[in-house]
């Protein structure tokens, strides 16, 4: 890292006051090679510590030296590396100052407007701990970039750890609110310049402390405001909500919601914190949760995270065919999340299936359901054990980059690596999303095969193996069976039960191994899973979408958002404290970008929270979705648009009306 630091070029942007590179040209800088004995590991999915804000970069080095006294050899080594690296950072900062000084001589007045404050901030950091808000932001940005080096990482509770600096500046009259807002917007733009999309740039705002006091502060409000103003994909703003959340903060969040784009996902403190505490996480840490790079939860600056996934829909295929599924109709080739990456072939990360029972002659739904549960539990158990094994491996074999280690108060004091006792909370997480699609499939079998007796299991299995080719009537009948998301107990309760099984099984395995496993009803590879899983009994053909997280299968929730919220609320969402995201999508035509729309957003949040949701994401459909709906109407049956005095499903509209609505939305947007 030290060698690396001396190679990282100085970068002074011309359109910002925050120094530090955005994207490193990897040809210019060769990342350091480490001692091959140890593997350096940082998955970037958890937030970095902030010792550098307390002591300054140089101060961290000093403390590291001081804390070496009386420690064992490993701790001494760890602290020494921390000291060296943080000294390197100070040198790196000084190089920036030199460069500014060289530039200032010839700078135009406009350039000076950025360079002067940049210099004073950097100077503060070269001398010691940041005192001003501007310097603290600069320190954060430098540290955050150096941690990720070639990638971006989780941000954590930025509104909390920058707040003292903000308050101080405002109280002393050094800074106005508008100036602070400019600084935050500037930072937001720098985030976006670092890339967008699956960047792990999640930032958690708001929340409560262990005494139930609201921690949303003026800076939290300002950050949400900045997101409204900058209106770009980064950072992914996540909002902690609780019953005492200050009103002006939630008002601002509602303003962010009506912009669409799904920003401002709500996390419900009221269920998350008690659930974590019940799982044995001490209250003071539970209150300090934040999102990791995605939607999973971590303890901000107090935990790492390691996770793995159980592909629940693939499990269903295994169960239906007794562990021996027919070949896919073709290769499971798709892209990750962006068109920028190349397509590749994907496969499930499940362990080889067990024989969960031959159900081809089943005459009772229970046989099918039990077979699924056997396969599902088998996979959960095996994968949880693997996760625990991987974690042990990492703890024995890996070290944390010194720069990261030194950022944590605990590591800096104890000299322990963040892998080995340095951080107070362990976070091992098991995911399983798309359980709702499994529930749709099981409910369809129950309804069509075992209640109506229109087909036998054998016939359905044949149809699945043929990807429904030659079985269109059957496919439609299965597709017309009850689906999750419409407030129909016959399917919602299956989804709820599967969620409970997942939560219980991860806990049982964890208990056996003396390890806390965080359960999460989430799956981020749902597009891939739809490709490596053949046709399913919900009438879905190979490659057609499966549900995302604990949301409805796309296009299947046709009774509006309130019914969807009621469906999801039947599951033990609160117990899945790793995270349990539910997406609600609304048409832009229903959500005007004004106070009326904001009021609606606030209501949805209030109700979802009251009903025990752990996480809620509100997306607002736009023209783009409607264009897709025209091509694939089956998948967009839940797209509701305002037509004239009432609303209707988009796909029910005539072509001309569709065009009309699109045009109308287009002009609004």
């Amino acid at each position, binding site marked *: 890292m030290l060698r690396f630091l001396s190679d990282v070029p100085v970068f002074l942007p011309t359109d910002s006051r925050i120094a530090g590179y955005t994207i490193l040209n990897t040809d210019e800088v060769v990342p350091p090679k480490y001692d091959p004995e140890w593997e350096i590991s940082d998955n970037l999915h958890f937030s970095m510590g902030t010792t550098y804000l307390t002591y300054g970069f140089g101060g961290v080095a000093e403390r590291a030296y001081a804390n070496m006294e009386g420690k064992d050899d490993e701790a001494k080594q760890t602290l020494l590396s921390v000291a060296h690296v943080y000294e390197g950072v100070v040198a790196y900062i000084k190089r920036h100052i030199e460069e500014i000084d060289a530039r200032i001589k010839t700078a135009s007045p406009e350039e000076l407007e950025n360079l002067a404050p940049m210099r004073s901030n950097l100077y503060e950091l070269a001398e010691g701990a940041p005192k001003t808000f501007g310097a603290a932001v600069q320190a954060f940005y430098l540290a955050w970039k150096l941690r990720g080096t070639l990638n971006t990482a989780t941000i954590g509770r930025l509104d909390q750890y920058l707040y003292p600096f903000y308050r101080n500046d405002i109280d002393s009259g050094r800074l106005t609110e508008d100036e602070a807002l400019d600084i935050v917007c500037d930072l937001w733009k720098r985030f976006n310049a670092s890339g967008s999309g699956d960047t792990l740039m999640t930032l958690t705002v708001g929340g409560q402390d262990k005494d139930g006091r609201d921690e949303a502060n003026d800076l939290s409000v300002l950050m949400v405001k900045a997101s409204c103003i900058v209106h770009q994909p980064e950072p992914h703003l996540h909002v902690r909500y609780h019953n005492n959340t200050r009103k002006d903060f939630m008002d601002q969040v509602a303003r962010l919601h009506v912009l669409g784009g799904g920003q401002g996902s709500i996390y419900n403190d009221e269920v998350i914190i008690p659930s974590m505490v019940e799982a044995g996480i001490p209250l003071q840490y539970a209150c300090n949760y934040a999102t990791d790079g995605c939607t999973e939860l971590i303890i901000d600056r107090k935990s790492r995270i390691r996770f793995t996934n159980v592909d629940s829909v693939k499990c269903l295929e295994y169960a239906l065919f007794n562990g021996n599924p027919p070949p896919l109709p073709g290769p499971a080739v798709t892209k990750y999340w962006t068109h920028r990456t190349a397509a590749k072939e994907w496969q499930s990360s499940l362990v080889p299936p067990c024989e969960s029972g031959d159900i081809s002659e089943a005459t009772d739904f229970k046989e099918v359901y039990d077979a699924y549960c056997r396969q599902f539990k088998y996979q959960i158990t095996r994968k949880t054990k693997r996760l625990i094994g991987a974690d042990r491996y990492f703890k024995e074999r890996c070290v944390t980059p010194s720069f990261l280690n030194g950022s944590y108060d605990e590591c800096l004091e104890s000299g322990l690596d963040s892998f080995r006792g340095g951080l107070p909370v362990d976070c091992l997480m098991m995911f399983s999303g798309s359980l709702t699609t499994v529930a749709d499939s099981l409910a369809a079998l129950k309804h069509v095969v075992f209640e109506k007796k229109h087909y036998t299991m054998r016939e359905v299995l044949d149809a699945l193996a043929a990807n429904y080719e030659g079985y269109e009537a059957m496919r439609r009948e299965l597709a017309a069976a009850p689906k999750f998301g419409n407030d129909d107990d016959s399917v919602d309760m299956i989804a709820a039960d599967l969620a409970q099984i997942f939560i219980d099984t991860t806990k049982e395995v964890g208990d056996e191994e003396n390890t806390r496993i965080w359960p999460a009803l989430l799956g981020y590879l749902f597009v891939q899973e739809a490709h490596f899983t053949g046709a399913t009994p919900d009438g879905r053909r190979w490659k057609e979408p499966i549900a995302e997280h604990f949301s409805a299968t796309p296009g299947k929730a046709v009774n509006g958002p309130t019914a969807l919220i009621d469906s999801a609320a039947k599951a033990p969402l609160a117990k899945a404290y790793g995270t349990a995201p539910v997406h609600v999508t609304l048409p832009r035509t229903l959500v005007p970008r004004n106070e009326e729309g904001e009021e609606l957003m606030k209501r949805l949040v209030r109700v979802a929270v009251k009903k025990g949701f752990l996480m809620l994401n509100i997306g607002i459909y736009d023209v783009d979705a409607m264009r897709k709906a025209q091509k694939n109407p089956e998948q967009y049956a839940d797209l509701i648009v305002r037509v004239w*005095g009432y609303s209707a499903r988009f796909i029910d509209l005539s072509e001309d009306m569709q065009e009309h609505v699109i045009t109308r939305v287009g002009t609004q947007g």
Partner: protein
Amino acid sequence: MRGTLFNIQRFCLHDGPGIRTTVFLKGCPLRCKWCHNPAGLSPNIQIQFLEDKCVGCAKCASTCDCHSLAGTEHILNRADCRKCFECVESCPSGALTVCGEVMTAEELFSVIMADKDFYEDDGGVTFSGGEPLLQADFVREVAELVRKEGYTVTVDTCGEVPWEAFETVLPVTDLFLYDIKAICPEIHKNATGVSNGRILENLHRLDACGKDIWARIPVIPTVNATAEEMTKIAELLESLSNIKRVTLIPYHSLGHHQYKALGYVYRFDTSLSVSDGQIAEFTEIFTERGFYVK
């Protein structure tokens, strides 16, 4: 008591204040040529056939003689239908469905209550249709239950019912959405099949009761989409004291394929439309008289 309805839509945001559940009741005394909701016309339960869902499997034909298949084309003889709906049961694709449902007041009430958490202070139920006041006793019974829980009741009416029907629901209704199509009796008769004497009389009587009213005006080309007719409507509304809002609803041919599904023929000209400019012009007619138009 039982009522006949054809749709219950949750999360409605435009049929009164707040978040509402809108209940569409069957049966209507008017025959507006442009009607977008033909399922509301007949008071009876009907069989509905959605052509594009049919897979031509002929299961219905083997259930009942009313169905036959010419090649893969499905033919339904509605005249002989006894409404046993066995064919619907037999149809695997969802092409055959029942339009309409009979429910008790308690059943309907429990569906409405499913969204009670969303209603908060201002939301509740809206009775629409069809013409909900053709089933005024039923509406009243359900409305009473809803009001008892503290939620609001809105009635969306065309006005073409005996005044007694209004009296039945008045004590349990917070807001009326009152459709006004035309002031000129000939225009009204021509477009809807009935004259507007009773409709306007009921509107005046309702206004005198002091209940809030939102006027809903469909803007229909070749019928009332003229400054002259809109001005007449505006002048009428001016003479009333409880019009809290005016909504202009521009014509669109939406729903005309539903006519076919129910065995009706759509007779309005689908090529007609109302321009944004016209709507702006008509809006002005109302706003300049101090109405809140939305």
